[in-house]
Structure formats: structure tokens, C-alpha cells
């Protein structure tokens, strides 16, 4: 029988400390949708659980895995697809930091949804984000690099569930594929930044759990999509109230 024994772990400095509620040092319009929220991973999500792995080989590029991850962390916002914005925290991508994001709910949409991510893990070869309540996905996303023979490979691996039934429906109707495209474009941009002219991204998707977690259906109360819809629907009533007041 084993008792808990204190011993040093070499991953100690790579993990964030647990927090009850999120705060951020990043400046962007999403602050209000993240501050005070809890993180939520695939255990707390609603929809089917997917493990998605995207990778790109950096053939002919003289960079080590560590150098690539350092480059990725430093310039992370620049690799995001056009139309999406990543507001890095002041300390950069480091354990415990919270970044803000603005992403269109659909490609080309003029409306942006504000949300964020917490950096839960970061070392010289990888870093990982966890989403907050109110994000479309309840996910862990790990960004890493490794050597395969003479070539460095960059990889994004997401373990995710959609957060609520609305988002799950949109996933079934095609948002799942759009989300894949987001990470493919991110890796293409990263590869181009180090000199790969025609990057080829490989993708593997596994549905780890087909069941939906109906016990988490109430996640919908955090949904920014629902807030946005309610705000739009009630806009005429608010306009009328303001008119009467003046």
C-alpha cells in the first residue's frame, strides 16, 4: 500500500498553479468574457469527444524542436488565420498566463466572439492551453515539436468536446471541419515562417467518445453565442426604452 511521499518532479515548473477563477494581463476586448470564469476541459464539455492531431514536416529547415517551439511561442499570434486575433498576456506563453482571443463564429463573419485560453503547461518542447467556461469548446490543446529522423515536425493536438448543445449542433452541421481548417492554416503559417514554401499538413481525427454528456447541458448558460443572440433579439426593446427615457 502506498502513502503519498514528497519527491521532486522535473515537470514542476512547467505546470500552472490551480486557480479558482481566471484573471488576465492581456489587453483586448475579450476581458469581460474571461475574467471570473473557471477553466473547462473535455471532462466538463457537452458534445462528443474528439482527439484531433495536425502535423507538418519542416523538410529542409535547419531548426531543432526546441528552437521551433521558442519561435512558435514568441510569434504565436502571427500564425493565426486571418480574421482571428490572439492577445498574448504580458509574460507571453508561460504557465498560468491567460490570453484573450477574438474569433469569428463562422469564416468571413464580421461579428467576432471574444473568449480566451489559459496556458496550463509550457516547457521547451511543448505548451498547452485550456479553455474557459463560455468558450465554444471545452478543450486542451497541445502545441509541440519533435524530431523525426533529420526533420523537425510541428504538431497541434486537441482533445475537445463542444461546450453546449448549440455548438454541438453547429459542429454536426460543419463547424467541426471549419475548426480543423483553423489549425491546418495555423500550421501552414508556422511552416511558411521558417521557410517551407508549400507546407503539407497531415490530420488525424478520432472520436474518443461518441456519447454526449447531457449532465453538462447547463453549460449553455455560459454560451457567448446565446448571449449574442439574446442581445440581438432584445435590441429593439432596449432602443425603445432609451427613446422613451429621453
Amino acid at each position, binding site marked *: 500500500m502506498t502513502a*503519498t511521499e514528497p519527491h521532486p518532479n522535473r515537470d514542476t515548473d*512547467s505546470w500552472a498553479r490551480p486557480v479558482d477563477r481566471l484573471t488576465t494581463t492581456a489587453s483586448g476586448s475579450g476581458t469581460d468574457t474571461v475574467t471570473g470564469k473557471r477553466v473547462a476541459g473535455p*471532462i466538463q464539455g457537452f458534445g462528443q469527444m474528439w482527439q484531433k492531431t495536425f502535423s507538418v514536416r519542416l523538410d529542409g529547415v535547419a531548426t531543432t524542436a526546441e528552437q521551433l517551439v521558442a519561435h512558435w511561442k514568441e510569434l504565436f499570434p502571427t500564425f493565426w488565420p486571418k480574421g482571428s486575433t490572439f492577445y498574448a498576456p504580458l509574460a507571453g506563453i508561460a504557465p498560468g498566463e491567460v490570453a484573450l482571443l477574438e474569433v469569428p463564429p463562422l469564416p468571413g463573419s464580421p461579428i467576432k466572439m471574444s473568449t480566451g485560453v489559459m496556458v496550463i503547461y509550457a516547457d521547451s518542447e511543448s505548451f498547452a492551453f485550456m479553455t474557459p467556461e463560455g468558450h465554444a469548446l471545452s478543450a486542451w490543446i*497541445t502545441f509541440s515539436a519533435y524530431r523525426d529522423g533529420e526533420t523537425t515536425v510541428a504538431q497541434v493536438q486537441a482533445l475537445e468536446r463542444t461546450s453546449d448543445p448549440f455548438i454541438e449542433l453547429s459542429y454536426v452541421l460543419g463547424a467541426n471541419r471549419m475548426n480543423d481548417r483553423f489549425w491546418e492554416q495555423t500550421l501552414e503559417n508556422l511552416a511558411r515562417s521558417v521557410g517551407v514554401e508549400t507546407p503539407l499538413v497531415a490530420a488525424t481525427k478520432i472520436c474518443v467518445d461518441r456519447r454526449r454528456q447531457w449532465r453538462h447541458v447547463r453549460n449553455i448558460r455560459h454560451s457567448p453565442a446565446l448571449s449574442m443572440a439574446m442581445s440581438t433579439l432584445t435590441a429593439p426593446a432596449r432602443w425603445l426604452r432609451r427613446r422613451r427615457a429621453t
Partner: protein
Amino acid sequence: MTSGTRAEVRSTAQIDTTLIRIEGEITSGTEKPLMAAFGQAVDSGARTVILDFGGLEYMNSGGIGLLVTLLVRAQRQGKRLMAVGLNEHYRQIFALTRLDEAISIHDTADAALAATI
């Protein structure tokens, strides 16, 4: 088998509870030994599987993902997962990732066994 990782299946005082003693690392690369040990525990008739992390030396974010995959597999088969032997550092990681909401944590295997009754 991944070098530096061992997952050893041990019987307990309860016939329907099996303990898996994990030593070394848990990363996404250690899926084979961990899943093989879980499969062996299930084949032996276990309804509850206690994961003993007393020998855990290193875990990265891929390792946490692997534990969630294991949890899903256990739930699909109607098995219960428990954790023992976590030091303060790994308890904090379970709290950070909210894995402690799905896997109950106990100080010792005896305490976990008592909780299954």
C-alpha cells in the same frame, strides 16, 4: 513498451478491485503500457481500478490527455477509476485540469478500498 514507464497490475483485498502501480513517466507516448495494464485489470474482472501514482516522476500535458482517454474507456465499460499516491504537485495538476471531478483521489490504496465498500 515505452522506456522509463512501468504499469504493473496488482490484485487487492477486494476481488472486484485491481490496482495499477505506475512508475516513471506519463506522456502521450506511454499509452501502450497504461492501456495494456488497464485491459489486463478489466480482463481479471475488476469493476474498480485504482491507479497508484506513488512512483510517478514526470507528467506533461499529453499525459493528462492520456488519463482522460483512459477515463472515457473506463466509463464506457462501466468501470470506476480511483487515484492514490499523488503527491501535492500532481494533486494540484488534477485540480488545475479538473480531472479530480471525475477521478476520486485518496491518500492510500487502503483508503480507496474503504471508499469502494
